[in-house]
């Protein structure tokens, strides 16, 4: 194993429930300590080391602050990593995703900002619910299949949230 555990870098135990404000604060602290500027006069080896640590820290932070990425990472620690590219067949969920995409399309066509705000809130609710369900089951080997299905759903909602943000920006202009 080349790199240390992302959680360990922040002095945390692997868990899905993470205090994001605390994580961000700890990140800023740690980032300062390994910032390349601090090593401008250090030896080449020390500079390289600081650069590596800085990159590791960034990767760890980006992974832990995103719910789906954190969830995928936890599953990779407790078993085999899920393939990046996969086809999901989760008919009911996908049907709902289709409806939500259609809705978002209509909101875009009508430039309905209030509608987008309401949509966003509903999406946030669905994300919170998924997060709660994942937090309950990720650490139980007997519920691995359920945890994998949930993390895939989290990925879809994360992408949808991204689409919503793009739409918001476009309507704001």
């Amino acid at each position, binding site marked *: 194993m080349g790199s240390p555990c992302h959680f360990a870098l922040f002095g945390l135990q692997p868990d899905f429930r993470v205090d994001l404000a605390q994580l961000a604060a700890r990140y800023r602290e740690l980032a300062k300590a390994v910032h390349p500027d601090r090593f401008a006069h250090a030896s080449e080896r020390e500079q390289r080391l600081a650069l590596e640590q800085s990159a590791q820290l960034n990767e760890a932070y980006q992974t832990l602050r995103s719910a789906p990425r954190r969830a995928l990472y936890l599953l990779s620690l407790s078993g085999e990593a899920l393939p990046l590219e996969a*086809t999901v067949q989760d008919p009911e969920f996908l049907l709902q995703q289709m409806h939500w995409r259609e809705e978002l399309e209509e909101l875009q066509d009508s430039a309905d900002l209030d509608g987008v705000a309401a949509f966003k809130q509903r999406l946030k609710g669905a994300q919170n619910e998924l997060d709660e369900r994942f937090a309950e089951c990720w650490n139980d080997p007997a519920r691995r299949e359920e945890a994998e299905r949930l993390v895939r759903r989290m*990925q879809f909602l994360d*992408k949808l949230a991204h689409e919503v943000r793009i739409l918001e920006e476009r309507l704001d202009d």
Partner: protein
Amino acid sequence: MAYSDKVIDHYENPRNVGKLDANDPNVGTGMVGAPACGDVMRLQIKVNEQGVIEDAKFKTYGCGSAIASSSLATEWMKGKTLEEAEAIKNTQLAEELALPPVKIHCSVLAEDAIKAAVRDYKQKKGLL
């Protein structure tokens, strides 16, 4: 990344976009998704008494390559038997559309959607 002319053509003029009645006993529906890019693809076929696909429709939320892959898939499926449709490979779709390596998974998604639609139809008919 530049799209090929064929991808752009299918993206700008998608063939067979739409919906068939999922409750029709002669309609098979395949619903698949790619979590990493958030793509969602629905592909439907209507099969006649001779076991030939007489109509195919799709709706895809995703990138141009995913839309083109499913559009081309519906085009190729029409007039084919179920067995012939099932034999369509993602590599054929990718080659026809000149998809770059990073977009190959879009054609895989389309192939999986074809298989899911055929399976749904067969399940309805008690053929599985």
